[in-house]
């Protein structure tokens, strides 16, 4: 079984359920009482994809508040996957996704696979952001889209599978290189071209 090691960063406005998604994905659990994420938190999980690939995901969960973006931006480096999460019951969380997206592509390589996630789909009665709106935004920006519910465990695994499948596809097509080395965290004030970080290292890629 071919093995890959991907770095995945979870980002988006505050209180949209980033940590809950992770908890559901990594521990198969839901808790309405999660602590606020301050700075960054780390999780790792190994998953199987289509029973042909074994994928180790290194997941970085970031704080959602605007103030932290200057810090969390540094953690994008070397990431293969960015999960951009918003809350379907909160219009505000959907409104400024453009700027988030800009930052993702600015701070990481161009080839980063971005998946837009509309979370809290279990609250369909309180929905204010239509599925079509999410789909349209994703299409316009050429990123993947899915709606999930961390509470009901709807589509949570599928979200991660979709994203990793896309990365594997890009690697197979030679459009992405995979760094099997542990991604470096960087000093806060350092401004370097993120593309430089994409050094290649032997792995199952071409």
């Amino acid at each position, binding site marked *: 079984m071919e093995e890959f090691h991907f770095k995945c960063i979870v980002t988006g406005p505050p209180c949209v359920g980033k940590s809950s998604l992770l908890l559901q994905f990594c521990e198969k659990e839901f808790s309405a009482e999660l*602590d*606020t994420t*301050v*700075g960054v938190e*780390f999780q790792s999980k190994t998953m199987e994809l289509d029973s042909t690939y074994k994928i180790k995901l*290194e997941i970085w969960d970031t704080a959602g508040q605007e103030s932290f973006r200057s810090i969390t931006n540094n953690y994008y480096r070397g990431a293969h996957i960015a999960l951009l999460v918003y809350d379907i019951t909160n219009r505000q969380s959907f409104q400024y996704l453009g700027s988030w997206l800009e930052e993702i592509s600015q701070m990481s390589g161009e080839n980063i696979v971005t998946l837009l996630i509309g979370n809290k789909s279990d609250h369909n009665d309180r929905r204010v952001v239509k599925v079509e709106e999410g789909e349209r935004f994703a299409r316009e920006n050429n990123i993947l889209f899915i709606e999930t519910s961390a509470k009901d465990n709807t589509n949570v695994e599928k979200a991660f599978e979709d994203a990793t499948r896309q990365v594997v596809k890009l690697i197979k097509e030679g459009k992405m290189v995979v760094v099997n080395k*542990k991604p470096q*965290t960087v000093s806060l*004030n350092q401004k370097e071209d993120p593309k430089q970080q994409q050094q290649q290292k032997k792995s199952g890629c071409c």
Partner: protein
Amino acid sequence: MMNRSISPVRLSPSTPVSSSPVLNGKSNSIQINNNNNNINGATTTTTSSSYKRLYNRARQQFSFQELAGTDLTLLMEESLLIRVFQFLSYHDLFVVKRVCSRWRPLCENKDCYAGLDMQSFIHNCRYLPKAVLAAYISTLDMEGEEIDALKMVCREIPRVILPDDPSPPPQLSSSTTSTTATSTTTTTTTTSKSNGINGFLQDLSSSFNSISSLTISGGSKSNGHLRTHSSNGIHQDDTFGSLTSSNSSNGSLSSSYESPSLMSSNSSSTPTSTRTILEAMKILIKPFIFILIITENVDKETQKKEKLRREREKRMEEAIKNMERRYITELGEEEIIKESIPSLSREKAWPLLIGNDLNITPELFSIFGARAERAKQKGESSLGREGTVTLIQLDLPRTFPMLSIFQNEGPYHHKLAAVLEAYVCYRPDVGYVQGMSYLAAIFLLILDEYQAFVCLSNLLNNPCYMTFYTMNLPQMEVYMRAMDSLLQIHIPKVHRHLKEMGIQPDIFMIDWVLTIFSKALPLDVATHVWDYLFLEKETFIFQVALGILKMYSKELETGDFDQCMTLLTHLPPDIDDDELFQHIATFNIKPEQFAKLLNEKSSP
């Protein structure tokens, strides 16, 4: 996860466990005196209706400040607490365990896990203490392959000592013995441990008093066999009453003193009748005294600790009476490094230690409170970062969620909002930054709103916290470099290993500094850190950080990237206060040294 037959009693303000009248030190009518000699606790008029009234009043008056420290549980015997904990689901036990160091061993007591079966084992294995896991696995009589299969289900298993391991299995909770809590013998033995034989009868009488006052909930629930019918779901308000009556009637002595105790609980009891009961109990208990002799030695240690704690409380009280900051500082220096400020004294000690250099007045607090109201209406168009006021509401329920008091309907929800909103308007240049709610929450657990605001404002008015809360990257980088070189000097092996993997201090330090460890460490350990922090200023944060890294140096020297990162961003919930402070004490970083280091690091 409610897969136990007993309906779980959540640690939430609306449930009787946390708001029972007995726990309320401030309610005169149902006051239980902590003094063991006092037997007036039973002078409660106990008709059902008057109980309801008292109970409701007590619920309103109940001070959560006491919940914050260990004071609440000091009123209860350990065995009684274990009984309370037995009603919790395994997941709740896991949560409750984090509340304080006294509760932790109790929550890990094997009696809390008596009903463990395969199904609940699989569902809850993450939450079970390692000792319980080991004990349970050893009862399974499993082969290697089966255990391998079990490992797939339960990630914790590889970390516990398996039965075929040559080394002995870990002891269950040390403080509360291995006797079963379902017999009154335990109640007596554990009671005796704190005070020796002489204190035993007094202890018993006091615990008996608490029991009889606890059972005032009326005659309808006179029978203690809660376990048998609780699966039908007991009305929450009744749970505590039933629970405690089970405590008084379940034991081996139950047949003998069940009726008097119920008598005292159903009809209005007088001190005289209580005394009669005590006389009766003395006779009944004699055969058990020999057990006490055996167990007495074991807990001289605990006894000593308790005595020391009382003494410290007294000295601190005297220092506070003198109301001199300098005096406390002198007293504190030597004492706090080893022992924390007694939780009852913090209310007075903290504001003194922090001081009020900003000269904040109650008027100022109310002015900014009013301004916050306006800022909320204006929303994003307000001055500076005042708009962040809207973010506070999102974070309130996510601040110490396990305490359940900052939740939307929680009793401290508005207080926390008020303090934070006032601060945002007071310092619109800083605004609300995630992490701040933890600081305000800790202050609110100890102080009132105004004092909490004074302390929060004065504490944050410090170059280190300001740097982090304003996200001043160049200056933060200086602190990170300072931390990095401290790590290199003091724990070089860990430094090298982390550096090799590219893990830099900002990964863990941002959380630790912003919340001053209140999120990363258990509450009691965190407040202990805070005690000392107010004396040593921010240098101590870096010292504590070194202490934590030293404590886990083994893991951090050998672990791979994932293990180290996971450990550093999710510290284990069962960090031991004494152990951590031993490690912290191995570093002695003077504020001047640290200032020099910062100076060096700021010039490239």
